[in-house]
């Protein structure tokens, strides 16, 4: 019997992308396929079943100067509310966050919506990162302004 992960790996390769097996063990019944597109590494976790479950994820690094965990956690919640359909997870060390979409459907249906789903993950991640950087920049500008006032300039 052909496994769903094997068929999915063949599909992604057929679309032009080199696929590697990720680090997820099979302890929880999941396998991770990794590929690159548009400069990002995309992970697809596959749990065999009827129907199978798929999780598409991409990770984004937050620049050191913008790593304020509490603030960024709220920003990600805001963006999740605006975008819808995706989930954000901020790493405990605050250095990066992941965007995920989950699907539980037959492979044929998953494959039909595969690239739009990958695009949704990427666009949500980019929107979140932009919002984090914007807020950090406005905060830095505000702090600078407040410091100037305190100096009486």
């Amino acid at each position, binding site marked *: 019997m052909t496994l769903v992960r094997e068929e999915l790996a063949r599909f992604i390769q057929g679309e032009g*992308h*080199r696929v590697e097996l990720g680090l997820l063990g099979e302890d929880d019944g999941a396998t991770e396929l990794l590929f*690159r597109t548009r400069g990002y590494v995309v992970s697809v976790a596959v749990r065999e079943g009827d129907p199978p479950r798929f999780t598409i994820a991409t990770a984004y690094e937050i620049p050191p100067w913008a790593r304020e965990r509490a603030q960024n956690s709220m920003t990600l919640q805001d963006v999740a509310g605006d975008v819808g359909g995706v989930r954000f997870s901020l790493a405990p060390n605050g250095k990066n966050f992941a965007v995920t979409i989950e699907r539980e459907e037959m492979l044929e249906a998953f494959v039909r919506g595969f690239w739009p789903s990958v695009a949704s993950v990427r666009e949500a991640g980019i929107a979140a990162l932009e919002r984090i950087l914007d807020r950090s920049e406005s905060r830095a500008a505000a702090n600078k302004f407040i410091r100037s006032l305190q100096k009486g300039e």
Partner: protein
Amino acid sequence: MDLDRLAPLEAALEEEGLLSTRDDDGDALRIAFKSEGDRYFIVSYRDDPNFVMIGSGWSLPNGADPERVMRVTNALNARKKFVKVALWEAENDVLFTVELCVATPEEVRPHFGRLLDVLRDTALEFFRELQA
């Protein structure tokens, strides 16, 4: 010695995690590859080693209004950076190309992802505007 002028671009594709095939002949060096299921090509001519073209070709939808197609093509040519849009093969196909003059294709390598994005976005906009 005949240098493989497209080797740096093959390396760029490799870095992007894209699979590719070569199809060289006496006139040209060619790479074919796919990204997200769409087909692209890279061409360099042996008698014009400074010229490099990256492109993709698409069929026009049946019944597309030729005047509208021309208007959309012209608007994109005027507005988009890098890309040339052309109607091709008895105007049944549309070709999106980035044509560059380089000392060596190595110069293209750091910008390859951006150029691919531009090609992709232009094709997307072309078909979106055609349907609007």
